[in-house]
């Protein structure tokens, strides 16, 4: 595992990071934890000329719950999310994902911002952040802009993060009835299928539902048809929930690999979505 040569610089602040991005141009990559980027560099699948290390930028690693709004600094480590009681209460789906992501080494180094900006089609967070309808705060030369998750995740390893921009925070409304259920790939432990669900319940019946699925398509996606079908379904009625979750991945060109075919992935999207609904409703 021998990467090509690269330069390394440390950014002291967000502004400094933006300046360095401008200076080093398109051949530079931000290093926010490195647990996706470094393995790609080791295989020489990525060969950035410069790594701009942003892990030392202060105050980007906080989990803040203010009223109904949760804001997570982009440099918050997976392990911090996995250990957060506040997050477990306010958005258990994200807590689920952080607890099932990677292994202890990855969780202790990798960050939510880095993982999100990487845009891996089998990553856990995109599904959860779509289901939470999260807002991404991006800062660049021209100032700050905010994007909803649905616009941030664009495709396979493709996000709306601009070349000169830094992702600084991710925020969302609390979703105490939410869950993320994951089918682990036996080798990579990425999601073969990962289903995130955020619900409101009225007297045991599902009010609104947001459902998002990762691992199946070129990028995580909202399962709009399932969301509509779930409205009004009694959360305890397993058959009705299963029926509403049928065809969760319809319209997606489900991916195949040596472990699972597209057809199996699509079928598992139904099963894991129904399980996520049951888990979210039970919270």
């Amino acid at each position, binding site marked *: 595992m*021998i*990467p090509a*040569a690269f330069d390394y610089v440390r950014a002291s602040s967000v502004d400094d990071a933006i300046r360095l991005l401008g200076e080093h141009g398109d051949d530079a990559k931000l290093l926010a934890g490195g647990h996706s980027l470094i393995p790609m560099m080791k295989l020489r699948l990525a060969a950035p000329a410069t790594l701009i290390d942003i892990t030392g930028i202060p105050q980007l690693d906080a989990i803040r719950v203010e009223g109904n709004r949760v804001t997570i600094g982009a440099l918050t480590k997976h392990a911090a999310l996995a250990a957060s009681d506040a997050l477990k209460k306010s958005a258990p789906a994200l807590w689920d994902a952080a607890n099932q992501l990677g292994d202890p080494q990855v969780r202790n180094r990798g960050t939510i911002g880095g993982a999100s900006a990487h845009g891996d089609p089998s990553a856990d967070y995109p599904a959860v952040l779509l289901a939470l309808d999260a807002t991404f705060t991006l800062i660049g030369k021209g100032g700050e802009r905010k994007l909803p998750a649905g616009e941030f995740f664009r495709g396979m390893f493709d996000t709306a993060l601009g070349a000169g921009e830094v992702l600084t925070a991710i925020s969302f409304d609390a979703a105490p009835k939410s869950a993320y259920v994951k089918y682990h790939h*036996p080798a*990579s432990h990425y999601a073969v299928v990962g289903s995130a669900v955020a619900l409101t319940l009225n007297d045991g019946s599902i009010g609104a539902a947001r459902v998002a699925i990762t691992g199946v398509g070129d990028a995580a996606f909202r399962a709009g048809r399932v969301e509509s079908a779930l409205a009004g379904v009694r959360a305890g009625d397993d058959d009705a929930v299963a029926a509403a979750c049928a065809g969760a991945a319809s319209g997606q060109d489900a991916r195949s690999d*040596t472990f*699972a075919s597209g057809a*199996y992935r699509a079928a598992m999207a139904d*099963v894991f979505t129904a399980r996520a609904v049951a888990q979210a409703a039970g919270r």
Partner: protein
Amino acid sequence: MAFTTMVGARIRRREDPRLITGRATYVDDVKQVGTVYAAFVRSPYGHAKLLKVDISAAKAHPAVLAAYTGDDLHHAQGLKTSLPVAHKMADLKTPPHYMLAIDEVRVVGEAVAVVIADTAYAAKDAAELVEVEYEQLPVVVDPLKAMEGPPYVHSSLGTNVAFRMPFAAGDTEAAFAAADEIIKQRIVNQRVAPVSIEPRSMVANWDAGMQQLTLYSSTQIPHLLRTQLAVVLGMSENHIRAIAPEVGGGFGGKLNVYAEEFVISWIATQLERPVKYIETRSESFQAMIHGRDQIDDLEIACKRDGTITGLKLRIVGNLGAYHQLLTPVIPTLTLLMAPGCYRIANIQAEVVGVFTNTMSTDAYRGAGRPEATFFIERAMDLVAQRLGLDPVEVRRKNFIPNTAFPHTTSTGLTYDSGDYETTMDKALNIVDYAGLRKRQAELRKEGRYLGIGLSTYVEVCGMGPSAAMPAAGWDSATIRVEPTGSITVLTGVSPHGQGQETTFAQIVADELGVPIDSINVIHGDTDKVQYGVGTFGSRGTAVGGAALKLAIETIQAKAIKIAAHAWEANPDDVEYRDGKIGVKGDPSRSMTTAEAGFMAFMGDNLPPGLEPGMDATRRFEPPNFVFPFGTHVCVVEVDAQTGQVEFVKYLAVDDCGRLLNPMIVEGQVHGGIAQGLSQAMFEEVVYNDDGQLLTGTLMDYAIPHAEQVPHYDLDHTVTPTTVNPLGIKGIGEAGTIGSTPAVANAVMDALAPFGVVHIDMPLKPEKLWLAMHAKTGNGRAR
């Protein structure tokens, strides 16, 4: 027998403190001044003509010292044209296997050039500057297709069949004619990768003053490596030193000699600099040997009561593109063990070895025997299913009875000792087999699918009698009693996780009555240790330990002579008792081994004619293999919605004869089960039809994390052997051999309500889900 305090005790491994505190020296920890680094340029194609290999740009790189192609090595330098293969087969086709490819590449990852630079990084950069023009040739990866005709992996052979070995015992046709049932089944034993945590690692140095080559290599066989270096490089063997320092896992993958070891050794002699090569994980997946990869076609003739009367068998071994050290031998071992622990007098078989455009297969933990155990244990369940019998009863009906040992099988092996039914019954009692079957029936009514799988395996190990081995099968040990009383043990085996630094010290401590801390067990360095054959085939203790026992006896005999002389006693009246030398019937006199050793060193009070000094080197030639056995029981539940398998219970009752250190035995069994279970559930090396390796990283190739394997319950029975003076059988491979069929049988049992007869490994959830949904559409059997 000595007074036992250490042997049989759960002594903590003496190896572990250095291993778990980062103080162990692996090959990459060997730092030598002036070291340069090798990077290999490897073929991206499964089969191609080499039109051009241009190393000029790489050589021009400022950090590069040298670069070589296959032509350079073999034509310009005249190095031997073929790498070694050890076998005693009459008609084996052995096409040339160059260190670096010449004219043609035949497998993805085959090395075509090597670049040497100041740093590993520069070497890799420069390797990317080597310009290779390939003309792609037709590829064949499926051995059944390859058997039938072109394209040929080696066009000069005009066939892909490396050998055919027919075999017949008894009257199989008559058995089939008289059978009540004939069951036919193809069973594929998929290709897997050893995945040692430490990949292949090596550093070679040439001492021009001493004219000595030293190769540190992560190997299981330092002496055999030294011999092959001498043969292939045309060097004098007494000017070569091979060292296996700490070895981070072998599993058979390092029971080999590799092109890279010869290349960097030769380059070290040219540059007079240490040359290091640590392969990457991706290179390891491509270019370290693979294991298994057999297609086994079975026909089983049986009586209605479950008695198996005959077996027809075709074993097709996918050899890969070239022979590595033992490649062709492996599928022939499968034939030897085909009867398992059953009386099957009539066997008609053919073993076919086939070349394909894939990496060579070779010894991988179990090496040919797991394939046999897998199909014969699946066969027991297939017979039970067809006849509506309990798999336990079919096994009971066919076991070689415990009164029939030693037992010569129809394939010509003589099983030393065994008691298969006792071990099986012990396992069935522990798991409450009847209760499990009841629970299974109840759960099925709820639409839950529990499966109970058995494997009653026997394996051949303690490799082995030299006459039955492709090369020497003996091993050696030296004991030196040092003047100050400490004891040095030099063993010819090369432990790399098997714990012999501990178990050998336990044996010596008891037999020579010395504290375990005064014993140093040295191995793995050909300049320190007398020639030894190495560690593989569950032989380390069964053969190397037996040699140690002989050396102990020689030391004891000399110590007795010295003590008798000092006491003016008749040596016949002097004996070792509880680790001390004493006079029979006279407890007042005693002498320690250290005291006798000191007298041997001083030399001034020795019996006339006795040489001074106290050391002994002995070799043990095993008169037979040993045959450990056991029963593994696996209980799984298959999720009908997903096909995912959950382990409910795993029990192994193994019998490896006498246990020297139960904790080490358990460790070997744990690791073995994990590896065998992993083959059943997770692992598969996949080449596509173009010969591309699709499972080239640990992101694609699954080896289990801790949470993917069950808790293991272990127990044992003890049936000693007389094959070696320790009465032990070897346990290194048993877990791997026993577990794979137990898991597969459990899964197939779970899916029986869906009419499933057999599904090939790995038992991926999708396959199981499809089987459960194919007929019913809803994953419910009723």
